[in-house]
């Protein structure tokens, strides 16, 4: 549950952001991002449904490379 997931913001409505990653879309809370402006097109690091910080696309893509490996490994039966 500590794994942060980089996601791209597609729409913002108050403290709620629609975010996307790997073709999956979900609602993310911006309640912990009140010190920053988050806009569509931004990338955010998401922890348990809450954005905890903005990040660059480069950092996000780099993070996804290792997550892809992890997902592949954890999808295999133990």
């Amino acid at each position, binding site marked *: *549950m*500590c*794994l*942060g997931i980089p996601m791209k913001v597609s729409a913002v409505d108050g*403290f709620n952001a629609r975010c996307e990653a790997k073709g999956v879309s979900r*609602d993310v*809370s911006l*309640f*912990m*991002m*009140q*010190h920053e402006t988050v806009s569509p097109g931004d990338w955010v*690091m998401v*922890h*348990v*449904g*809450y954005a*905890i*910080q903005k*990040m*660059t696309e*480069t*950092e996000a893509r*780099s*993070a996804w*490379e*290792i997550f892809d*490996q*992890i997902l592949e*490994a*954890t999808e295999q039966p*133990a």
Partner: protein
Amino acid sequence: MADPATTWLDRIRGLDLPERIRIMNVCGGHERSISMAGLRGALPAAIELIPGPGCPVCICPEEDVYEAIQIARREPVILVTFGDMLRVPVNLPRREIRSLEQAKAAGADIRPIASPLEATAIARDNPDTPVVFFAAGFETTTAPVAAMLAGGVPDNLSVLLSGRRTWPAVAMLLEGETPGFDALIAPGHVATIMGPEEWSFVVENHDIPSAVSGFTPESLLAGMYSVLRQHLEGKLFLDNCYEEVARPGGNPTARDHLERVMDVVPAKWRGIGEIPASGYALRPEYAGRDARRRYPGYADEGRKRAGQMPQGCDCARVVLGKIYPNQCRIYGSACTPRDPVGPCMVSDEGACRIWWSAGIRSEDAA
């Protein structure tokens, strides 16, 4: 553009390393990246990478899991919790219900969630049923729980809080006679929330080289290169190899939510005992949200083996970095992800589970 992992590996290989240097990480996410990317095999043999106290599920007090099971079974509630908590066993005879998963199978309304937002949604959708959110986690998870409460929740939602702070466990190790490591990779997302500065004490009070790292192999290797150079050159400082995300002062909104909603208290860690200033408790203003107040009397700390790790399980020593996962007496034999004994094999962030997923077996060299 950050340097690629191969460049960092070459730099590390080019260092004049001592015979042995032990670098501890204190984050399940770090350990997962290290294991999945095969960094141990790629680094010079002198470098030992030790997984430390980085799994909140593993150290969540046995008493709290027991309390959650009892509330879910004996009160007319819906109990929601992060999925990892469901299979954590408590110390009861095998004929009794020993996990939330077993309680669920026996009829209790227990639902796994992935976010505090789901807890509020379930409470909203079931206005006539009390909902208890059993919330275990480090700062990265506890801050969202604080944000959830600060933002306002339905009246029927209460929280059974088992929030823990990471650095006091490292402080406890460093204040012991044998800390067991020579350098530290500090957790990137805890630092994102709380600020990298929280880890300065490791360098300033204990002369241990330290670096905050992110979760990519490049960021982890950059952190390792930094602490190795600090060690070799004797110039110690807290480096930040995750600057873009772990910013000075951390996330001010998240810290504000934490401070408004929770107090820092001494807290128990499973199999380890109480660590000063290592836990969170709801502030008096939020006492009405405290599941322990709504449903008192279920902790039963007088039970046999209450608070301990399961019998035969070496999870406590694994969590403290005293042994590697595959040095546990039951790793891979009595304890596997399919039939786990200890919480370190249950949780996705447990070192045993991560090592098993990475293909490391009991006979492999650590």
